[in-house]
C-alpha cells in the first residue's frame, strides 16, 4: 500500500504518490482544472476521493471520484433553502461521516453552512440546526468569508460532533446535528468589544484527537488552544517557544494526544511565517512548550500555509505534510525532525490530505 497525498490548489487538484518510505514522490495533475480545490480528501471507508471545489463563475460543488481521480461526478442540488434567506457561496471542507454510517458525509461551506449527505455525496441537505442557529446574528465573516471549515466526529459516539466557523466559533452537537451549543469558553476574540463572547470567535482550525477524543485542539485567530473536556473549557497555549499565537493550520500525531504541530504567522496584520523563515512548531507536552522544527525547511521565507494545508498520516514514524501558498509541498517522514520539498511551483496550495493507493 502506498501513500497518496492530495494537494488541492487554487487551480486544480494534484496527487502525489509514494511508498511507505515517503522518499520519492510522483506527481499527477492537475485534475479538475479550472476549479479551486479548497479541500480534497480520500474517504478511508471506501477509498473514494471527494473535492470541495469552487469556481468564481459557476459556484461551489462537491466532486467525487471512485477511481482515484480518473473520472468525477458532481453532487446534485447543493444549496440553501429560501427559508434561510441565505445562498451558498463557497464549499470549504468535506468530512467522512462516522464509521457506523458508511454512506454519510458532512460538508462545511460559506456562509456559515453545514450540509449532510446520506448517499456518499450525491445529494446534500442543509443542517438547519446550525445554519439557523439562534446566535447567527452575532456571527461575522473572516477574511475567507464565513466559512465552516472544521467538522469533527467523536469516534465512539457518532451523534457527538463539532463544527467550527470563522468567525462564529466552535459548536458541539450531542444529537447528531439537530441542536448545537457554542463551545468557546475562555477563547479570546480580541477583535470584539467583549473579548470573551459566547460566540463570534475566529477559529481557524479545530481537530479532535482520535485516541483521546475528549481532547480537542484549535488554532485560532487569537491563540492556540486545547480542551480536555469536549470543548467545555479551553486553555490558551502559546508562549514557551511559540513565537505567535496567530496561524491557520494544525496537525496532530495520530497516536500521541500530547503531540501537536502548528505553523504560525507573524500576526493578523502580517500574515507570513515569523522571523522570515519557514518553521513548524511541535509540542510534545500538550502545548506547555513548543520546539521549532526547521531541518530541511527554507530559512529565508515569507510563506503562508492555509488552514487545510497541513496533514499527518498514521505510519510509524508518522509522516507530516504541508503545502504553501507559494506552491511547495514539504514532507517529513520523521514526525517533523527532517523535511524534504517534494513538489514546487504548483499553484497556491489550499489543502493537503493523506490517503493511500495500491
Amino acid at each position, binding site marked *: 500500500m502506498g501513500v497518496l497525498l492530495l494537494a488541492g490548489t487554487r487551480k486544480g487538484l494534484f496527487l502525489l504518490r509514494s511508498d511507505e518510505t515517503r522518499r520519492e514522490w510522483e506527481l499527477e495533475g492537475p485534475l479538475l482544472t479550472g476549479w479551486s480545490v479548497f479541500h480534497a480528501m480520500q474517504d478511508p471507508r471506501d477509498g473514494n476521493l471527494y473535492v470541495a471545489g469552487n469556481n468564481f463563475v459557476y459556484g461551489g460543488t462537491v466532486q467525487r471520484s471512485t477511481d482515484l481521480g480518473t473520472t468525477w461526478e*458532481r453532487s446534485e442540488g447543493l444549496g440553501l433553502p429560501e427559508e434561510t434567506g441565505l445562498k451558498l457561496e463557497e464549499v470549504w471542507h468535506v468530512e467522512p461521516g462516522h464509521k457506523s454510517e458508511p454512506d454519510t458525509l458532512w460538508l462545511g461551506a460559506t456562509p456559515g453552512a453545514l450540509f449532510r449527505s446520506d448517499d456518499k455525496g450525491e445529494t446534500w441537505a442543509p443542517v438547519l440546526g446550525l445554519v439557523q442557529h439562534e446566535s447567527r446574528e452575532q456571527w461575522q465573516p473572516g477574511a475567507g468569508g464565513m466559512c465552516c471549515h472544521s467538522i469533527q466526529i467523536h469516534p465512539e459516539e457518532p451523534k457527538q460532533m463539532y463544527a467550527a466557523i470563522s468567525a462564529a466559533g466552535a459548536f458541539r452537537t450531542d444529537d447528531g446535528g439537530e441542536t448545537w451549543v457554542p463551545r468557546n469558553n475562555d477563547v479570546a476574540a480580541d477583535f470584539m468589544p467583549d473579548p470573551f463572547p459566547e460566540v463570534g470567535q475566529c477559529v481557524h482550525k479545530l481537530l479532535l484527537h482520535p485516541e483521546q477524543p475528549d481532547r480537542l485542539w484549535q488554532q485560532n485567530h487569537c491563540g492556540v488552544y486545547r480542551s480536555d473536556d469536549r470543548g467545555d473549557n479551553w486553555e490558551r497555549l502559546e508562549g514557551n517557544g511559540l513565537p505567535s499565537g496567530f496561524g491557520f493550520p494544525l496537525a496532530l500525531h495520530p497516536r500521541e494526544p500530547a503531540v501537536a504541530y502548528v505553523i504560525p504567522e507573524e500576526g493578523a496584520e502580517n500574515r507570513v511565517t515569523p522571523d522570515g523563515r519557514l518553521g513548524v512548531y511541535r509540542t510534545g507536552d500538550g502545548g506547555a512548550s513548543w520546539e521549532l522544527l526547521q531541518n530541511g525547511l527554507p530559512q529565508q521565507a515569507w510563506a503562508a500555509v492555509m488552514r487545510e494545508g497541513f496533514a499527518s498520516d498514521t505510519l510509524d514514524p508518522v509522516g507530516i505534510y504541508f503545502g504553501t501558498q507559494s506552491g511547495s509541498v514539504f514532507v517529513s517522514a520523521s514526525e517533523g525532525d527532517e523535511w524534504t520539498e517534494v513538489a514546487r511551483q504548483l499553484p497556491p496550495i489550499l489543502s493537503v490530505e493523506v490517503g493511500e493507493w495500491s
Partner: protein
Amino acid sequence: MVVVRIPSLLADQAGGQGRFEVEATTVGDALRALPVADLLLDERGELRRLVNVYVDGDDARRAQGLETPLDGVQEVRVIAAVAGG
C-alpha cells in the same frame, strides 16, 4: 429546437459535451435542460452573476433574462464573464 453551446470547463462537467440541442421556449427552459444547469443557475434558479448568456448574439440580460423567448432563435451561447485571475 435550439442549439446551446457551453464553455469547455462546463463541457468537462457534462461528460465532454459542449453542444446541446434542446426543446425550449425560453432561455431559462434551455438552461434548465442542460446537465450543468446547477452551475449556471443558483439554488433559487437565478442566473449566476458572472454567467452571461447570448441569444443569437444578444445579451439575454438586456432582453428578458431567463424569460427571454426563443422563438426563431438559432443559438444560445453561454460565456463566462471576463473576471478572475
